[in-house]
Structure formats: C-alpha cells, structure tokens
C-alpha cells in the first residue's frame, strides 16, 4: 500500500504534463498476425548433390487441420522516450529501461488450396506485461492483451493478401483499470523479393481503422473517449540478410494516420500523424525454437494541425530479446 501511495505521489508530481501522454497507446507495436516463423518450418536439409530428378527426401505431414503455435518473448531495452512525448516537455527526460514479457498462442485453422492461391485462417491471443525499471515511471506499468482473427491468402503471383480484425486492450497495473482498447479491422499485402542468394526483401503495406476507447484526455476532457479513432496506412520495407549464424534485419516503415474524431478547440483541423521508423534486429538461433536477438530503432512522429497539444516526438530504443516459440 505504501508503495502504491509513493507511486501515486510521483504521479501527481509530474502531472499535468504526464497526463498528456501516459504511454501513447497509438505508438505501441501490437501483434495482430501470426509469427512468420510458423510458415517456414524448415528443418536442416540434407547436403545433397544436384541430380536430374533432384533429391527425394521423405517427410511426414500434419494429419490434423488445426495447427497450434505459441511462445514467450522477453525483451529488455533502453528507451530514451518511453512515453513518446515531445522533446521540450517534462517527460522527454524520462529515459528508462523497459522490460516487456509476452506470451502468445495461436492456431492455423487449416488450409484451403486453390489452383493459384492458398488461404489460411488464423486466430490468436497474446498477453504482455510492460514494466518501467529504472525511473519513477513504474506507476505506468501496464498489461496488454490482444486477440486477432485473420485470413492470409498467398497467391501464386507472389503477393500475400491478408484481412483480419484484432482487439487490443491496455490496463494500468497500479490502478487495475483499462486505459485503452481498440478494434482494428485491417487489410494488407506482403511481397518478398530475393535480392540475391542471401538477401531477402520484404515489402509490407496495410490499411486499417482504429476504433478506440481511451481514457479521457488530460488536457481536454471535452474530447470523447474515442478521440484516438483513426485510419492508418502503413508501408514498410525490410531486408533479411543471413550472415553465418545470424539473421540481420534492417527495416524502414512509414505510418500515416488521420484521426476522425479530434476536431476540438485544440485541433480545429483534425490531427494527422506521419511516423517514420528505422529498425535493426540481429537474430541468433540458439536452437530451432529458441532465439536470441539484439534490436534497436529510431522513430519520429510529425503531427499536423494539433492546435495547442504537442504530439511530435523522436525516440530511440536498443535492447536484447529472448524468444521461445514452438508448434504443437
């Protein structure tokens, strides 16, 4: 109880600026797709010479239609702006170490094979606890839950199309109350390009609508709880480069968001965000299911027509992750 009071005091000491942001739920990377690893369940191939017919290695296939996959991820990282606030605000100095632990479970619900496409429906859930370790922000520790249903359509032209809807919810651990939730119907496309034998390029694009329910805005209580409702368009290009036992994955993504319910005295013309993100991840497989990774990234948000409320930010992160994933 004493701890809780201390945390609450810390909260009021930094308010009202801190209320402006808390952990910006619109900048959290939310998983609403199955992990790509389940589509590449490739074991170690035999070293075989070429022949006219090719090597004929027997395999055994799943007999059941439903394939279940799951795993746990643990990440610890330094974040120079965990609350995604503008640099000249009080919170910009709140650098912190963040520890994030996720458990996820999903299932592929069979395959529908057509001549030029394979359709695979998926469902999945995840549970994440995020803790701020070093600063006084630990009263903002939160728990996220996520659920999704989606269909992935792999076409023979190389494009992969997907459509789905996800539900996400964040709860503050201190007050045990939900601070944010959203439904996110979305559609997307993905295509991979083989630049050479070792380098794979991945283009990804999606569009979706965030139907949100957020805590009242600290500086403008007149805003409705759905003031974060928004359309977004996300485009990204990433490289996967295999170097010895390492998988090196740099990527760039750009997100455009336009908010549909933010026309208030502060935001006369509506809010529009453009977020650029550069990321680098280096994976090392400890075995087939266990993966160690180093990652880092830089993000920048430019917001147009926000009136008095500043939403621009820059942030950098760097950390270490360990993930265990398996199929059942």
């Amino acid at each position, binding site marked *: 109880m004493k701890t809780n009071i201390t945390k609450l005091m810390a909260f009021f000491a930094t308010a009202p600026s801190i209320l402006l942001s808390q952990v910006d739920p619109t900048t959290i990377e939310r998983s609403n797709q199955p992990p790509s690893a389940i589509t590449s369940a490739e074991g170690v191939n035999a070293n*075989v010479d070429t022949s006219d*017919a090719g090597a004929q290695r*027997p*395999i055994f296939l799943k007999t059941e239609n439903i394939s279940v996959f799951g795993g746990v991820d643990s990440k610890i990282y330094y974040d120079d702006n965990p609350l995604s606030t503008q640099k000249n605000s009080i919170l910009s100095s709140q650098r912190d170490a963040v520890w994030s632990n996720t458990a996820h479970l999903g299932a592929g619900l069979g395959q529908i094979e057509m001549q030029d496409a394979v359709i695979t429906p998926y469902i999945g859930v995840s549970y994440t606890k995020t803790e701020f370790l070093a600063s006084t922000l630990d009263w903002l520790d939160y728990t996220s839950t996520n659920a999704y249903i989606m269909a992935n359509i792999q076409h*023979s032209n190389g494009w992969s199309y997907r459509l789905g809807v996800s539900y996400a919810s964040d709860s503050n651990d201190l007050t045990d109350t939900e601070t944010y939730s959203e439904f996110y119907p979305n559609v997307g496309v993905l295509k991979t390009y083989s630049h050479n034998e070792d380098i794979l390029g991945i283009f990804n694009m999606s569009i979706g609508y965030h139907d949100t329910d957020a805590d009242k805005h600290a500086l403008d209580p007149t805003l409705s709880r759905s003031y974060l409702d928004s359309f977004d368009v996300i485009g990204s290009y990433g490289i996967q480069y295999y170097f010895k036992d390492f998988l090196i994955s740099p990527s760039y993504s750009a997100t455009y968001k336009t908010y549909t319910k933010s026309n208030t005295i502060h935001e006369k013309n509506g809010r529009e965000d453009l977020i650029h993100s550069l990321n680098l991840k280096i994976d090392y497989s400890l075995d087939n299911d266990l993966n160690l990774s180093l990652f880092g990234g830089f993000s920048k948000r430019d917001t147009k027509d926000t009136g008095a409320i500043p939403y621009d930010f820059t942030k950098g992160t760097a950390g270490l992750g360990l993930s265990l994933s398996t199929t059942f």
Partner: protein
Amino acid sequence: MFAQGENEHDLECTFSLGTNWLFPAVGNKDTNLVRFDQNSTFRNGDSLHTKEQSLCELANKDLKIRLGSNSIVGIKQKKISLTKGTVLIYKNFEGNLNIKSKQSNLSTAGQYTAIVDCTSNGGFKFIPLEGKGLIIPAKGESKEIFRGRLTMILGSPSQLGSAYDIDLLLLLKSSRLINAFPTSLPSMKRISLAIYAQQLRIKGKYNALIGDAPTDDNLQMWAFGEKEGN
C-alpha cells in the same frame, strides 16, 4: 494426316546442352540419326537420346518436356515413352497423357508439372510438383495428383505402388531439370505456391533419401541420420 511438317504434336527444341541424338520415326521426313540442337523440330513419333551431362527441352503449346542426361524418350501424339532416364513434364492441357516406361504405363489427366524418373525394375516414379488431376493405372484405383507425393508405378499391367510425401523445397533446389535450364518453367509460380502449402503442413522430415527400385518389392532408402520432428 499430320505426318509431315505441320503436325500439331511436333515439338520444338527450345534448349539443348551437350550431345543429343534424334532417332526419326519411320515415315517421317528424315530418317537418319541426327544431332539434335536448339531450334530443331521433334516430329511426332521421333525418339531422342541424351548423352552424359546433356540436357534438352522440347515444347509445343500443350507440353513442355525436359530430358535429363542419359535418357531415351519417344513421343507420339499424347504418349510419352521413357525407356531410360528422367524427364520433367509440364502438361498444359486437360486431356489424357500416357506415360510409359520399359514395363509400366500410366494414364494421367489434368494440368500439372511432374518429374518422371525411371527405376531399375522397369517402372518409374511419378513426382508431381504442382497441379490438379488424376493418375490412372491400368490396374487398381485412380488417385488424385497431390503436390510432392512421389508414387511408384509398378509392373504390367501397371499399378500404383507405395507413395511418399517428399520435401519439395529440397527437390527444387537440387533438381537439374528445374534449375539447369536458361528459362524458368511456366508453372514456376505454382510450384512455389505448392512449396508454400507443403511447408505449412510439414510436421517433420526423415533423414533419408529415396533411391532406385531394383525390384517391385525393394526400394532403396539412403539414411543419413536420425529423424527430425515428432
């Protein structure tokens, strides 16, 4: 009626590597044994013999046939006789195509890409890479073509022997009939899709490779370690 020149079953040589010999059929225009090079015409009823380290590709609007080395193949209308060696068949029409080896024969229907590999027992392996259709033996029930499922074709009258799902990705990487030609197969995108679909369903791989079938009751398996997966 198409005995000379304009036969719809004639095939053009679209690629030739090494030493390939054409054995013209009796009644065709030229009857001498001739070297068979790119842009040559393979007339209905002719036979082709590829030598060691040689490859050859024949094509018309309905078929694309790639011959491996040391192979002997004759093609007459919708019948392919593979006396020796290995061929890849890209079948782009719905009707029946008959595949015959020294001892066995198989009727196939539907559109597909498959590798046919002769075995020492006189039969052959039928390995579909993609497509839909039926394999119809002389004796016994027909089966649907299923990507990556190697089926032994045995005996005379022929019947379907054991079937094995094989790793398509490894086959793709290691097959000269797929990789050693300057142009990719017209069905390459569908083959890639078949590999994707198979990868989604792979539970494990045996550390063994399927070899020759010296007799109908004996199939060589070359083990190289322990089984992966569950």
